[in-house]
């Protein structure tokens, strides 16, 4: 297993967000993560990436217990992530954003770091914007920059938190192709997205979270037929999403 969550829990004050979650992800998996608002999806990503500390339980990456490690150490151990709301380094150019990740996340220096940053920028279609300050990028460019920075850390496990939110269908498809190609290059992908049809078409496995619990887990087709899942999504939405996906 590349990633294992063992009885992980997290509370914010009196509010229990993740009561007791166990989850395993194999090397090479492409896992879609869905669930209603407030299901704890982003919190779980925080617990995996180390941005948040678990109250209890363990996070294991490739057999190594990383629970006590900080976010920077987990990144260097192979966990790359994007943020739901883009967090670019505003005062730096797009290329410099990727260079930070290549230098510290991937641990490269000099020309090697430059080449990796350049490659990440190009793969994410940001060549034309490479020398523009991140603060001046458009929303789509910022979303792509999140992805570029995450892959420039050379992750084994890539956590994508709604990278497609707010994009048009055409932009969404481009992004989907990009993520699929990253996955094919050997990166394990965990992807939170509200646009269920996108995940159903690309992911080999779908995980449904509700109230911080695992509601359903399996291949996308059978998960979407799951009664509990349908009830959570109030039925109608899901039919619509699935017809969309079958197109």
């Amino acid at each position: 297993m590349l990633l294992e969550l063992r009885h992980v829990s997290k509370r914010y004050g009196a509010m229990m967000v993740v009561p007791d979650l166990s989850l395993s992800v194999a090397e090479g998996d492409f896992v879609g993560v869905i669930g209603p608002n407030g299901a704890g999806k982003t919190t779980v990503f925080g617990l995996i990436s180390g941005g948040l500390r678990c109250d209890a339980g363990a996070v294991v990456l490739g057999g190594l217990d990383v629970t006590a490690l900080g976010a920077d150490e987990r990144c260097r151990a192979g966990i790359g992530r994007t943020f739901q709301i883009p967090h670019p380094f505003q005062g730096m150019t797009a290329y410099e954003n990727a260079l930070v990740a290549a230098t510290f996340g991937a641990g490269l220096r000099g020309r090697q770091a430059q080449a990796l940053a350049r490659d990440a920028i190009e793969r994410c279609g940001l060549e034309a914007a490479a020398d523009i300050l991140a603060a001046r990028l458009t929303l789509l460019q910022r979303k792509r920059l999140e992805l570029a920075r995450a892959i420039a850390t050379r992750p084994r496990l890539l956590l994508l938190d709604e990278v497609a939110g707010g994009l048009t269908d055409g932009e969404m498809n481009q992004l989907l192709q990009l993520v699929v190609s990253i996955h094919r290059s050997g990166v394990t992908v965990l992807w939170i997205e509200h646009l269920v049809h996108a995940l159903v078409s690309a992911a080999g496995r779908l995980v449904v979270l509700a109230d911080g619990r695992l509601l359903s887990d399996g291949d996308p087709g059978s998960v979407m037929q799951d009664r509990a899942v349908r009830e959570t999504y109030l039925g109608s939405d899901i039919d619509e999403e699935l017809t969309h996906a079958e197109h």
Partner: protein
Amino acid sequence: MSDTPTIMPAAPNVLRTAMLPLTMALIGCAVLVALPWYASFATQRLLVEGFTVFAIAMAWNLLAGYGGLVVVGHQMFVGVGAYALFASSNWLGLNPWLCLPVAALVSALFSLISSVPMFRLSGAHFAVGTWVLAEMLHILTLNTSWLGAGAGMPLEALGDFDRWTRNAGVYWAALAVGLGALAIATTVLHGPLGLALMSVRDNEAAALASGVSVRRAKLSLWLISGTMTGLAGAVSYMNTLQVTPDATFSLNWTAIAIFTAVLGGIGTLEGPLVGTVLYFLLREVFADYGAWYLIGLGMLAIATMVVAPGGAWSLIARRWPIDLLGVRRSMPPL
């Protein structure tokens, strides 16, 4: 400049490393090095102050402007460096110039040790914490008889040198400190540490998620700035020949560093340079006005923060597209 979407790419970098500026820099250095042969002692002493204040302001600017570490007790490094120089030279009877590395070493060691309690604090607590530490050192020196207590110490070994050698030697040391501070700051910001610091300044969570060890970056910066300030403090007190707890651990040092950095532009390499020049111009012209001069300085600092928070350098950079010591990294062509 601020409305241009693209950052000046490779061209200025090529220009910057081209022959003309290099030649000019070399001529400038030669003029400065030869200064004791054609300038008065008063001019030399003024420049010693200028170079050391620049180094101290640059160190403060690195911490506050690049590391987000707003230090209010910056004088602690000045005091530690100066006392280390005076004590080691007096006790061992050594040439004070040979003791400058000792002062740097002690300052580095002090920075390392002080980072342990200081880095447990953050934001305003950190700022006040550094002030408290500086005051503790002030009081500690006041009560330490083997450091001369309240009366301080003279630098005895300096009396062995004739006036010209003494003045020129201190001047050259200050010149080295000033140019060294500029060189070190530029090198640091062009290197991986600069990249890390700028990412942390822009977004700490994203920096961590990109593998940047925020703690290590801040500690490195603290060590570099503390040592730089300690050495500048040591050279600065070679100029006055006497250390006392009240002067050496005075909050004035921090006030001057903040004023200089704010006036010139926090978070730029050029800022402390411009700020130092402005500060000394103002002082030489208006210092006779006493209290009014200080009130004027304060008003000017406040006005700068309100009207041009980027300092004088931001006004210059906005008007002319110059990137003197720019740290921008453009994407290399394939």
